[in-house]
């Protein structure tokens, strides 16, 4: 029984991180209607930023969060403002194709820059854990979980309560009206996509602490983010928490009862099933 509880606990901790991963994708998809197939590559880049900051500058990964987020934000902003903005009003397929291209290019560049070796970020407290109700909780995972949830909540608050958030949502709903109110859509799109990339960067940083990284982790993470976004629905940013927890627990159970090499298959499989069954998600409205 306690093994089962342990698995569930692992799943929950993983799920919180997954929620943060998916948040960037869901945000950009829900607000800008841009489906970013390179999202996982952004996560991967964030992970490598954290890795090099840790290895070269001995910067603690949690302290490195702002740097990871900032660097990915700038990257994402530029990508949107100067490249993606050129095809925003084209059929959705074009966006898919271009971000697919980004994904391939970024993965390749990462492979030749960082090599295909597995890396990990091991802060001094990496081995520490504490026990709660007979369940062992690794410290880093708990910290990552807490950080992930905090960021998710913060983003939700920003979107819902601040003027910037309102501008972003206005753009999403009615481009022309937003323009008439003095909002420059190009900048808003850039900021939003940048925010999505920043969140991916944060998720990558945290991911590097709890798991090994290499240039190829992008695609499975993109798929997981998609599955989570769709399960949680794109209407409410907090939906990713539901989706993330679901996927995290499912993966944890798979790891135990089926085999750890099947976890990626499960993620992709869930994505396909969710798409077939309910593309608008559990929390989304039925169109």
């Amino acid at each position, binding site marked *: 029984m306690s093994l089962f509880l342990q698995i569930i606990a692992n799943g929950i901790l993983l799920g919180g991180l997954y929620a943060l991963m998916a948040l960037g994708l869901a945000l950009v998809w829900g607000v800008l209607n841009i489906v970013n197939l390179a999202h996982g590559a952004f996560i991967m880049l964030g992970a490598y930023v954290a890795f090099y900051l840790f290895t070269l500058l001995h910067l603690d990964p949690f302290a490195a969060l702002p740097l990871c987020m900032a660097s990915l934000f700038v990257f994402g902003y530029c990508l949107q403002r100067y490249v993606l903005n*050129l*095809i925003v*009003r084209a059929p959705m*397929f074009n966006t*898919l194709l*271009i971000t697919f291209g980004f994904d391939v*290019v970024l993965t390749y560049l990462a492979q030749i820059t960082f090599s295909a070796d597995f890396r990990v970020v091991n802060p001094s407290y990496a081995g520490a854990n504490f026990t709660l109700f007979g369940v062992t909780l690794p410290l880093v995972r708990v910290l990552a979980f807490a950080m992930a949830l905090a960021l998710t909540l913060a983003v939700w608050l920003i979107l819902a309560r601040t003027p910037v958030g309102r501008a972003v949502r206005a753009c999403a709903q009615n481009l022309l009206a937003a323009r008439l109110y003095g909002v420059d859509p190009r900048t808003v799109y850039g900021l939003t996509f940048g925010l999505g990339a920043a969140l991916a960067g944060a998720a990558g940083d945290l991911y590097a602490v709890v798991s090994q990284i290499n240039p190829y982790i992008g695609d499975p993470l993109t798929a997981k983010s998609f599955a989570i976004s769709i399960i949680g629905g794109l209407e409410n940013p907090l939906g990713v928490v539901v989706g993330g927890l679901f996927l995290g627990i499912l993966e944890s159970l798979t790891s135990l009862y089926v085999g750890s090499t099947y976890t990626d298959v499960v993620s992709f*499989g869930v994505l*396909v099933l969710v798409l077939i069954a309910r*593309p608008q998600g559990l929390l989304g409205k039925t169109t």
Partner: protein
Amino acid sequence: MKRAIAWLALSATVVMLPLVPWIAPPALIQFGTTTLLIATLAQAWNIIGGYTGYASFGNSVFYGIGGYGTAIAMVQFDLPFGVGILLGGALAVLFALLLGLPVLRLRGHYFAIATLALAEAMAGVVSNLDIAGRNIGLILPLRKDDVLFYELSLALLALATLIVYWISRSRFGFGLIAIREDEDAAAVMGVNTTLFKSLAFMLAGFLSALAGGVHAYWITFIDPVSAFDITLNVMMIIMAIFGGAGTVLGPLVGAVLLASISEVLATEISAMASLFFGLVIVVAVIFMPRGLADLARRFRSLGWRYFRENLRLHRL
């Protein structure tokens, strides 16, 4: 007069191509074979993506299934190549039928994402199968005959192109085009959209699987990473679109052009291919999203403004 010249050029090329191995250096033959195979993939994609309008981002799954079907048949069951490749093709068709039915109900980007997820999932599934050699893969019997594989690949591309040509002039093809242009209107006009979509998907899968089988036997090796290489999707899609999706020769032209440029820019086709194709995608999608065919058609009246027009229409 122009048409006569075009026909002459085409016929000359068709006659010359099988003769290439006898006059070309080995490296060129190998480049030719690889290009012919990827061109086949582009043509196969053309059937489901170009004509039917269902842009699959995961056709590499059929390539991998074909390769593994061939490999398993030859390595685990000692069957000859001919049987193996047909087995791979049959498996691909079965996969397309069973998984196509639910997935083809999705529209637009949902379909694209689902096919991509399927491709990734299969790679994971295969890497867990003992019969497929798990992560290590399988080594196929050696058949050192580059000329043979060149001619096989050429024949395969010819088959694929003939099929696409037939499609462009048949009732089936018209049904596919109607589905692409407006699926609801097509249904109301009597097109059995479910059947036609499935057939197109199965056909694309079959041809892709044959290419996968030839490739596996040629390089005598298969493993999950190379067989289900996601980059293949990028290449086949951009080749088809660059040349002109929904045309008979577009994917061919796109494949030959892009493969050649990539070859010239890089030392070998696999290394920098991803970078090159990724960049081509970005540039092509921004400036010429409807491919060379459309560019050729409109350049006469618009000139360089064609590119500015595409930008103007689609930018924020």
